[in-house]
Structures are given as C-alpha cells and as structure tokens.
C-alpha cells in the first residue's frame, strides 16, 4: 500500500471513530456530559450506549427514559462517572425505563443516590460499582444501587461502598435476584424493603455496620413484602460504626455489628450462609415495635415477624463488642445477663396467630441446624420478664420457599435455582 493510501485510511478511521462517543480525543467534561445525556435522550429500543474508558466528571443527574437500552462501559474500574461536587439532581443515573441493562462501569461520589431505577419491568445491573470514594461518611448519599417499585430485577457481580444507608437496596419491588455482589463499608450491606419474591445469594456483606436486612416499613405505597430467600452469602465483620445521619429513620438505629436482621415480615428463608464476627449479634429476628419507636399510623402495616426459617447456616463469633451507642442495646445486654447471643429473637408473636395456635412456637420461627450458636429469646411481649435461651423450642422446619424466577436467569443454567433444602 502506498503512502497516500495509508494516510487516507488513517483519516477515515479517525473520522469514523469520532462519530460515536468513543474513539475521539478525550472529550472535555462538559462535552462528555452533554453528549452522553443527548445519547440517552435519543436512545431507541435496542440501543447499546458504549462508554469509553476513562474517568469523566459530571455535574448533573443523567437520566434515561427509553425502554430496552443498554449502557455499557469498559469495566467497573476503567469507566468511571464521577459526580464529585454534583450541582444538580440527587442521583447519578436515574432510570425510568423497562428492560434496562447497566454493565461494566462505575458511578462515584454522587450527591444523593448512585444508580436509581424506578418503576421498571426488566432490570439488569451487572459488574457495576457505585462508591463514595472518601469511605464511610455521614454526608454520603443514602443508596448506591437503588431499584424501587420494579419488577424482574437482576443485580449481579456488582460492588457498593460507602452508602450512608444501603449499598444494595431493593424497595417495593417484585421478583428480584441479587447475586455475587460485594457490599462493604456501607451502613447496611443489603436491604430488602417492602419487596416480595427476592433471592439474595452468593453475596458478600463485610465491613458494613449491618450485613443483610429483610423487612417491611409502614407508610410506603407497597406493603406486604414477603417471600425472601437469603442463602450462601458471607456476612462477616460488619462492625464499621454506623454513620447514618441521626434522624428517626430506621437506619440510624441499626446497631453496628449486626449480621442479618429480619423485621416485620413473614416467609423468609435464610440458609447456608456464613455469618460470623458481627460484634453485636449475628442474627436479629425482631418485631417492628420492639426495634423502633416511630408511631404506626398505617393501618395496612403488620409489625410482626413470623414464618421465618433459618437453617444450615454457620454462625459464630457475635457479641464481641455490642453497639453501646444505642441505649436500647445496653438494655438488651442487661436482659441477656451482660452479653448478647449469636441469635437474638424478641419472641413477639402476632396476637391473632398466638390465639389460634397454642404451643411453644406459634409464630413459626424455625432455627435449626445452625451449628451451636448462642441464643436469646428476649420475651419482649411480656416486658422482658422471662428471657430464655431455649433454642430447642425453635428447632423445627418449614417448607422451603420456591426459587425466584425471572426472565434474566434461565432455569437450569444456574444451580441457584435449586431449592432450599
């Protein structure tokens, strides 16, 4: 090939490369932000928006409303959308679109939440990192990966760090799989709130203030979260001092050093998890009204916790340094004779259930084959008069909950679809 041919090709390549977002000389920050937002606005179903390698600064919330769009970077440590000093909007990326996929990029230092997905049917978040790079800080945004009121959600192989509430938050959603993620240095690792049909497995929750919470709260449009499976997770050393801002919001009252907690929900199965060295308690099963003092005005809300099946977990090393920041935890330690157990249960049973079912365990809280954890039933319903260590009373089994089926996870291709036992 002669010289002119080479240069012609070079010019052609450069020109073609400049047509997309990728390839050109590194765009200026403002230019990158504007062009990316334009791409998101103009996106059509089926589009893949490729993000180049590099760290890009953005001032404003990016938003997507077109269905069936994929945003794909070059890797969660190679394509970084930094919102440090964000000037407008609370989220990093705000998605209100169905069949959305986010892959292989990072969102850093947003003013508020990181990746917010609202009212979407069909969500995949894969190999995405959301992080506040200064580490735990009260002023960090509350939620890193934040799907709300969604259906059919898959979040996998992602990382969340530094959220002042939860690294991974699943709220008011239905049919969700959270797997193989890592959540660390957040206040809460994972929260499943007012959601149903959720599988949480093969995740790591470490060095948060609390590991994995499964619960319902009043006053949200969707009530009645239930049917949650938490299995094969590693939940350890969640002892980072709780850095949520002080307010009545429940998260401030999450004791530092909580492994997994279950509150105001029924039909939860947690199994084959390794839960260890969470310094207040490894497992916390509790009624809403025992834990929190906010008034319940929502007549739809049920504060009770029952039909809970914890089995075949490895649980060890709680109570090393309970969170005496909370007076209530100190009070519990008094109830427990100066210490707290691996598994803490308040013993509160819905009076309706208790009236209909006599016997030791009308609430159907089954705690079986979890090694040799220490245990305390606080007897909160009776003013903490008769706390008991009667773990044997809860040695029972419940039918395993069915695996969550979502279109993004093909049955048979993954052993995760295997049942609980």
């Amino acid at each position, binding site marked *: 090939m002669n010289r002119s041919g080479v240069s012609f090709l070079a010019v052609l390549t450069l020109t073609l490369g400049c047509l997309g977002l990728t390839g050109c000389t590194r765009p200026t920050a403002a230019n990158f932000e*504007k062009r990316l*937002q*334009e791409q*998101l*606005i*103009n996106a059509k179903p089926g589009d893949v928006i490729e993000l180049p390698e590099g760290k890009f600064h953005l*001032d404003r*919330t990016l*938003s*997507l*409303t077109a269905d069936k769009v994929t945003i794909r970077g070059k890797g969660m440590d190679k394509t970084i959308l930094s919102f440090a000093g*964000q000037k*407008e*909007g*609370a989220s990093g990326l*705000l998605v*209100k679109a169905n069949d959305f996929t986010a892959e292989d990029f990072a969102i850093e230092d947003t*003013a*508020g939440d990181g990746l917010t997905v609202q*009212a979407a049917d069909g969500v995949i978040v894969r190999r995405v990192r959301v992080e506040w790079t200064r580490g735990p800080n009260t002023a960090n945004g*509350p*939620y890193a990966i934040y799907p*709300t*009121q969604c259906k059919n959600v898959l979040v996998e192989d992602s990382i969340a760090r530094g959220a*002042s509430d939860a690294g991974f938050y699943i*709220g*008011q959603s239905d049919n969700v799989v959270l797997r193989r993620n890592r959540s660390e240095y957040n206040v809460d690792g994972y929260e499943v709130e007012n959601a149903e049909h959720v599988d949480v497995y093969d995740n790591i929750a470490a060095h948060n203030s*609390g590991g994995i*919470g499964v619960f319902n709260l009043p*006053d*949200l*449009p969707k009530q009645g979260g239930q049917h949650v499976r938490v299995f094969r997770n590693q939940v350890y050393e969640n002892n980072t001092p709780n850095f*949520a801002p*002080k*307010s*009545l*919001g*429940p998260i401030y*009252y*999450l*004791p530092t050093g909580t492994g997994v907690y279950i*509150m105001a929900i029924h039909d939860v199965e947690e199994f084959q998890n390794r839960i260890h060295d969470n310094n207040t308690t490894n497992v*916390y099963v509790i009624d809403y*009204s*025992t*834990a929190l*003092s*906010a*008034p319940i*005005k*929502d007549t739809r809300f049920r504060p009770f916790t029952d039909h809970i099946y914890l089995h075949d977990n490895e649980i060890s090393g709680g109570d090393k340094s309970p969170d005496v920041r*909370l*007076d209530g935890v100190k*009070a*519990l330690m008094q*109830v427990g004779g100066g210490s707290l157990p691996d598994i803490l249960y308040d013993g*509160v049973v819905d009076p309706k259930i208790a009236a209909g079912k006599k016997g030791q365990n009308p609430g159907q809280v089954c705690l079986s084959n979890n090694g040799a954890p220490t245990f305390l039933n606080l007897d*909160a*319903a009776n*003013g903490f008069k008769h706390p008991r260590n009667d773990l044997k009373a809860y040695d029972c089994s419940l039918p395993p909950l069915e695996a969550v089926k979502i279109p993004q996870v093909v049955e048979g291709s993954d052993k995760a679809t295997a049942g609980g036992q």
Partner: protein
Amino acid sequence: MPRVARAPSPARRCHRSLQRTGKAALALLVLLAILTACGRLPPPPVHPFLQEPFPEKLSDWHLFVGQSPRLQPNQRVIPYDLNTPLFSDYASKYRFVWMPPGTSASYRDDGVFDFPVGTVLAKSFAFPVDGNPGKNEERLIETRLLVHSKTGWIGLPYIWNESQTEAHLDLAPDPVPIRYTDSAGTRHDFTYFIPNANECKQCHENNHAVLPIGPKGRNLNKNFVYADGPANQLAYWTKFGYLQRAPAADQAPKVAAWNDPDAGTLDARARAYLDNNCAHCHQPGGTAGYTGIDLRVTDTGLRTFGVCKSPNSSGRVGTLSYDLVPGHPEQSILLARMTSIRPKEMMPQIGRSVVHEEGVALIRDWIQAMPVDDAACARNPSHPVPGARSRKPGL
C-alpha cells in the same frame, strides 16, 4: 411590563411605516413589501410537527410573529396564565396554547384537560436584562414546547440565542448564568439549569405517560387580559372553540392564587402552592409516588401530606424526623427541603437553583398555623422496652 409583552403589534409598526412613506413613485413597491411584512397577507399559520424529526428552529413552528424577541402570538395561538404557577427561579413565564383547526380540548374537573393530538403548549422563560434595573427589559432564555404528538406528549427545549432572534432545539441544554438586580435592588447571581428532554418527563410523567401539568381547569379558572379585553380563560377558550363541556366559570373548581390573600385562606393558598409545585411528582404514579406522599390539592388524607411520617433515607434532612410536624415548621422536612439548595436535600430536585422566599414563607405560615398535636407524632408506646422509650434496641 416586560419588553416581550410591550413590543408594538405588527399592525401598529406598519401604520408608522406607512406614514413615513411619502414618495408616490415608490408607493407600489413599498406597499407590496409592507403588505407582506405587515400581515395584510396573513403570516403562515402554525406548523405543527407531530413526529420526529422536530425542527431545529423554533420559528419553523410559526407560533410567533413579528420582530425579535418573537413572542407575539400567531393567529389561533392564545396566551394563558395560571392561578398558581410552578416557581422557576423567579423567571417570568409566558404561556401559549395552540390546537389544530377543528379540534378542541375536553374539560375535566380534576387533572389536565383532554387535549387533542396536535396541541402545542409553549412556555417561554425570561429574566431581567442585567444593568437596566427599572427598565423592565427581559432576556428570553428558553421556550419549552409540550407537543401532543402522534405517540403522546413530548417535551422540546428551545434555547434562545444571544441576539434574541431565534431559539434552537437543544435536548440537553447547557446551564445559563443569570445575573441581574431586581426592582427592589436585590442582586441575583446564580446558574439556571434548563431541564433536558428527559428531565421534562421527570415532572410530566405519570405511570409512564407524559402529560401537561399546568392547564387544569382549577388552575386556568381566572381572568386574563387579552388583546380584546379581559375575560375568564375557561369562557374565552370555550368561545374560541378550544374547550368543550366546561361549566360556567363560577361553577367550576378554582385553585387559589398562592400569593393573593384575598384569593383564599392560608390553607387554600398553601395547598394550591403544593399542588402546582410538588404534586406533579408527589402523587400516585408520579416520580415520587413511591414515597407515599401525595400533595395534590384534591388529596384529603393528612397522613399522605407527611404528617408525622418518617421519610426514607433519600428523604431525610439533617436530624429531622418527620416530613411535616403540625405547628412546628422548623421540625418539618417539607420546609427544610424547600429552603435548601443542596442537590441531595432540595425540592424540587430539578428546575430550581434559588430559594423561593415567598413560597417558603407561605408554607412556614401554613405549618405554623396547624394546631400543635405533639401526641400525633409521639413515639409508639406499645411493647415497651424496660426504661425510657428512647431505649429501643434499634433495628
């Protein structure tokens, strides 16, 4: 009065031109030119675009005629106003509506009218020109079109050029620095963020469908000074053929003008303010529907106004506990969010860069005037932990 509204009508300008034209020899040519320029030959009618591609220039829509800044409405383009508008950084707003000939909107008591396909709503935003306090000159920043296209409503931001001769479609507009001194001598210096085409939907979307926000019966039910005299807007639209099945103005619901103490009680004006500044998101199906807060004026449940309701973590501000504490504005997150300009805390999340002092004062007075009911927000006494109620063990 702003310059955009004061510009002489084409007819008046033509009259002056004609007076200046003396030479008979030139009369024919000049007359022809003037006939064209002055609208004796009518300007081309509004050109609606109901599907992509949308025109790059605002002038291609033919919504406006005359010289720059071009806000003299074309034929069949009607200006309108609202009892209680959305606050947008103290910008002046100029609203216009156009519907295709032979079509009309259907009146609804609640919610926005049922507008025909082809409807164009135009809202222009202007700020005072810097360095000319008292002259009331304004600079147009943007004109937002909300177009009822074949596939639904779509928002199109057109950004005015420096010379104010044209506005260009820009789906992701850059922020604009705004600097001026107002008539009271207060200096304003801030960055004005023009919502991008997706952000339009953030406010205008409900259950995945884009809808107008302002032109509801209750908010349009007021007098407007038209070129041919004052008239009630509902009556005027009806007479013009733009509105069907509207009741007589005095029979139709009417939302209070937020800033006119004669227009309604404190409660009515505060509710009107929240209705048009917050409720587009804060209602079921809206962007903030998931919060459980419903701020529509038609909503009657105090609980959904946030009384004694804990926010989720995204809604928290400082150490405040509840969205709204009757009698205690200083403890109410609702007011704190209106008073903040920090992205994480402020409400609305977009479309506001400065605090609406008068709006904040209204809502503060409203919360202050609510009967104090500390018991309503008292913490739950059931299942007491031994000791004080503050000794809950936590989550």
